[in-house]
């Protein structure tokens, strides 16, 4: 994998996920003056989750722009800037607020290249902090990535490690198409090895986080981390789980999933978004439709978010999305009993 090669040759430090994103933004802005940041409180305040930090001091208010509270306005301005040759990187303070920007993202950003026969393109990046677990209740905790994965013309990424957060953001900024990056709020403080140089993690390539024989567990973002932890526990129980971190849900790396299921014969898909009509349904259907179907030795099982708004009560909030224990139980049942 290209990113691993870079990691081996470069100077590698331990950074938090938020620091890795900030480093990518800084390097992109240093390398290309068309790149600018745009969003609510991304400037002096440093971002609602501290991601942009001191960038306003390094690059000035012209390139790190605090905007009014109008997601539709921000998104529309970004689309316009992108069409005219800029490389806007926009932050939606909580991904829940993206509902207000839907027209610009879905009807404009995603369509313009096609509506103009390829004569215009929209090279913009939207960063969206999402997910539950912070006690922020139903309007600040959703996982809405599947909505956008349903729209041709958009790319949707969910990096799970500081390494991927940096490398995928740089790849997204290079990309001539609109790219949405969903960053899980609980991952911002997690740490990992990050090369100092500006490297790219290719979009549309899943990572096998752990090799295994008995079951394939597919997840992205924080669910990939939980799946890895679950796999470690399963190994202690004699179950060898292969963990695939999707990293990119559109385009999706179906080949890696299919090859893994062909080997393990069992598939568990884990995602934080609402289970019904979600990413897991798509992956399950892709496998069921493919020639890998003939290699399944158990039903495909989805673990997804509850059919409920995220509750404010912290106990219920936790219960509403898959946890490490749920993954361990579901995987063990699937391997041992052939059902969830």
């Amino acid at each position, binding site marked *: 994998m290209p990113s691993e090669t870079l990691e081996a040759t470069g100077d590698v430090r331990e950074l938090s996920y938020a620091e890795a994103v900030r480093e990518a933004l800084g390097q992109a802005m240093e390398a290309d003056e068309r790149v600018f940041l745009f969003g609510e409180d991304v400037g002096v305040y440093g971002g609602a989750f501290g991601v942009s930090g001191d960038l306003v001091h390094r690059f000035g208010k012209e390139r790190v722009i605090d905007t009014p509270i109008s997601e539709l306005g921000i998104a529309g301005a970004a689309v316009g800037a992108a069409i005219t040759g800029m490389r806007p990187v926009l932050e939606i303070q909580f991904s829940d607020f993206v509902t207000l920007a839907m027209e610009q993202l879905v009807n404009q950003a995603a369509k313009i290249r096609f509506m103009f026969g390829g004569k215009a393109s929209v090279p913009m990046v939207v960063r969206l902090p999402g997910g539950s677990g912070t006690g922020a209740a139903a309007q600040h905790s959703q996982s809405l990535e599947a909505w956008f994965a349903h729209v041709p013309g958009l790319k949707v990424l969910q990096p799970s490690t500081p390494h991927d957060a940096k490398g995928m953001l740089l790849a997204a900024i290079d990309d001539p198409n609109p790219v949405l990056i969903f960053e899980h709020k609980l991952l911002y403080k997690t740490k990992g090895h990050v090369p100092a140089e500006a490297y790219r993690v290719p979009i549309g390539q899943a990572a096998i986080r752990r090799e295994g024989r008995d079951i394939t567990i597919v997840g992205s973002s924080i669910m990939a981390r939980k799946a890895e932890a679950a796999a470690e526990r399963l190994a202690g129980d004699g179950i060898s789980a292969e963990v695939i971190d999707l990293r990119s849900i559109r385009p999706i790396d179906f080949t890696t999933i299919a090859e893994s299921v062909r080997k393990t*014969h069992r598939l568990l898909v884990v995602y934080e978004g609402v289970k019904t009509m979600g990413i897991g349904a798509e992956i399950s259907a892709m496998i069921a439709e493919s020639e890998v*179907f*003939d*290699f*399944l*030795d*158990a039903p495909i099982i989805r673990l997804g978010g509850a059919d409920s708004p995220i509750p404010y009560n912290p106990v219920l909030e936790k219960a509403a999305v898959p946890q490490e224990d749920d993954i361990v139980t579901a995987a063990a049942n699937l391997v041992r*009993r*052939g*059902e969830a």
Partner: protein
Amino acid sequence: MPVEVILPKVDMDMETGTIEAWHVKEGDLVRQGDTIFEIGTNKAVMEVEAPATGAIRNIKAETGVPITVGTPVAWIYRDGEAQDAVPARAPSPSSAGSVPDGPAKSPPIEPAIATSPATAGLRATPLARRIARQNGLELAAVSGTGPRGRIGEADVRRHLDERRRCASPQAALAPVPAGALTEGRLQPFSAIRRIVATRLSESTRTAPHFYLTSEIEMSAARDLLRRLAARHERIGAPKPSITVLIARIAARILRDHPVINASAEGEATRFHENVDIGIAMERDGDLVVPVLRDAGNMDMPAMTREFARLRDGMAKRTLTPAELGGGTFTISNLGMYGVDSFTAIINPPQGAILAIGRTVDKPVGRDGQIVLRPMANFTLSSDHRIIDGVAAARFMADLREAVENPEVLL
């Protein structure tokens, strides 16, 4: 949803059962409670009733093949239920005898075809189906151990392994000339044969047998049988046989020999309160042992009647598992085949079994003279873990005394 017909558990500790015969064929209409098949278990054959009213579809269990308890063997489609959910013509698997009048339209079974109608309605994972297809294996022959009897990869692989072991024993025994073991016909054990094989192997492995043989004069017993026959005829009881008379005598003296009327149970001896005498019989090549319950308290007419009932029930296969197991002592008589004497294997967990040879006139010494007397050999096999030689010898002494003077006892 169609109603599943599963292979029921009709006996304690039953793990598999064998369908002896189907009473219905594909597409037959059945009413709830109708007998749809017979199941062979621990020495009994039970009738299984339809759990619902409707049309029988997708009969998928072969007769004569062990099937895991709980496995669906057919479905009943109630009135109005779509039958195209599963192909309607799914025939019974290969055993032609199981559906004697099966519809002529049933296509020939082609093991290599994935959509073989015989596998329709079966629960099997795609991978199990794929491996079966690649190996030309009919999935209906595989027992599924997954949820609701689903066949998984492991079930198919286990079945293939077994098939390989059965099909090519010479591979495992290299020095044997090729072909020496593969000629002839390989017939899988019947359910009863499997039970017998398991139990008797266990008996010879775990119970140290020893044998005491007595040659006993049968004059008085024969004389008594003649008179009993006349009396039974008057009271409408069946004609008594030597086997029943010996059972009656043994039942009587066993009350005085609790250590013989006992079973080994772990590291303990269980002394039975009742005397329940099993009589070894043969049915269609299988060994079955119906039990005369509480034989110690039966008179001759009662025992003769009960013996006749058991013999008829066995032939008609109407005996329940309870009537075919759980004796405290067993009698096996091969005298009618001209066998002089033999040693029997103890029927576990019982402590002893009595083997009876033929009665034949032999020269014996009586009062200084050589005279001919009807004599028979009785051989007691005892489990030395719970019965010592002297205890067994005392029983044999009382047996001789009783058989030679039966009227004293009866």
